[in-house]
């Protein structure tokens, strides 16, 4: 499975990349903004995007996820430190295959990604 990481916190992004690679997945890129995410998704068309809702500045992770789903058919796992702030409109637009609340343990990440992998494989 080829995965795009959309996360503006560099430490977290690099750690996620390493964890996903350790799990045997390919990370096609790390994007810190909505624009970069869309650009990278168009270039690589990943199987899955791991999207943080809160990006630096005016960027919106939800908008990036909505674009990838609508234009490229790329599903997203939504990551956020404040899942309770996720609006119904956000969920409708992004239709995430899974939600991941921050902070999460490597065990939780493994479980969620493996679960998504199994669903997407079918």
């Amino acid at each position: 499975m080829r995965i795009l990481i959309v996360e503006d916190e560099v430490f977290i992004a690099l750690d996620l990349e390493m964890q996903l690679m350790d799990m045997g997945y390919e990370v096609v890129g790390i994007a810190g903004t909505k624009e970069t995410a869309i650009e990278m998704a168009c270039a690589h068309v990943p199987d899955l995007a791991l999207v943080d809702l809160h990006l630096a500045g005016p960027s919106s992770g939800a908008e990036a996820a909505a674009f990838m789903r609508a234009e490229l058919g790329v599903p997203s796992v939504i990551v956020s430190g404040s899942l309770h702030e996720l609006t119904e409109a956000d969920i409708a637009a992004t239709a995430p295959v899974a939600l991941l609340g921050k902070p999460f343990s490597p065990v939780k990440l493994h479980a969620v990604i493996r679960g998504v992998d199994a669903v997407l494989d079918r």
Partner: protein
Amino acid sequence: MKHLESLFDRALDAVVGMDEAGLVVAWNGAAEEMFGWPRAEAMGSSMGDLIVPPQHRDAHARGLEHYNRTGEGPVLEQRVRITALHRDRAEFPVELSIFPMSGDGGGRIFYAFIRSMAAEEAARRAQELRAREGEALLAVAQKLLEDVSLDEFTQFCLDSVCAVSGMEAGHFHVVRGRGPHARLHPTGIWHLADPRFQPVVEATSVVRFAPGEGLPGRAWQSGQLQALVDLPASCQFVRRSVFEEVGLTRAVALPVWQGGDVHGVLEFFGTSYARLDEEVLRMLQTVGSQIGVALHRKQHAEHRETLRREMSHRVGNSLSVLASIYRSCSREARTKDELDEAFLGRLVAVGQANRMAVEDASKSVALQALIEEATGILPERSRISIEAPNLSVDRDSIMPLALILNELATNALKHGSSCQDSRLAVRARFDESNENLVLEWREHRAVPLAVPPPTPERVGFGTKLMWHMVEGRLGGIFERCLDEAGFRVMLRLPRERLEAPPELAPATIHSGAADG
């Protein structure tokens, strides 16, 4: 008869007499005072025209005619409560009793003892208003304790004030901006007693008042309640045509005070039936100022709640970052000492950068200071040269830039030990276009190597971190080269992202209602 009249003149009640034709035949001193008509003018006039309010005149005339015809008078010799008319056309409540007597000329004369109830009525109304005022204040105080949003709370306050004062529409403006840019902005939260008043909402949504401008602006500037009993005639009321069209012709504006400043203005509108006498204004003043305090408290509470959530979010995020840094360092480290050094070094760097970016956010940070802070860990400062243009770093860029410089300095500390005499030059300048900052980090070996050093087999975490910070967070370009002469890193960073705006506006968090 003369004897009777001199007796009437000593009575405390007004005593008036009327013949069968309805004309005044007796009028004592108390009646002169109560109705404003001197005896000389009253005598011979029509009693109905003189003191009976227009809406009761028909009944008055029919009653007199009925008695004259049948001798029956159901209202005679009873205590009757009704309103009477003063010479100045003001209606006031009275209590009276009428008794018929035979006149000197054989016909009937109707005498009435009349007592004004105006003072009692005023006292009763004042008491009632005060009770309603108390009820409204209690309701608002209770609402303040409930878990409702600022918008809902404002709405409740407006509804309450309109209910107790009989006003038809109410709205809240908030002050936004500072100093000469401060304006009153409509919140869009309204109480409307009837949907036909809707056009005033649209008319208000586009206006912004400076101090002294319009009715709200005048309430703001003066800090006092402002009342307009005739909107259509006031050239100071800019929205008058729309308000006049829907029949809202009376207005009151009340400043909301807290801590010596006006934070907003409450506005209330009524039709021509709305009573805006002293009692109502006094009540509006009391309720309005209490509500002002409550509104302000609610705003504060909401502001605190926003900060609390932001804080919790940041702490959660910091812990995630920390865990990530630890996992990344632990993956790379070969010994426990290496792990300690790498992890703690980065931890301190994140902490310092956070302090500069968040705690000292009011002061912008100079590029030179950032470089000096990072290179502070290196020994032998005499071998370090730093050159940087005068540039204030934007707070969003402080963290990535500080972490990049920390990685470079840590790296120099680790590898610089193998070549004691190396020199470090950090040079930053703007490129020809003036749109990019080019930052060059150069470690010169005192003695160049005979052969180029081998290219590292894999890219280390530090390098990856710098690369992502530069390209992902700062939108720049990262180049790195290791050769015989030493080690060199070049960063090309867009000035627009890096540089703080000329004047840092104080950070503010708007409340939901203020933005509504």
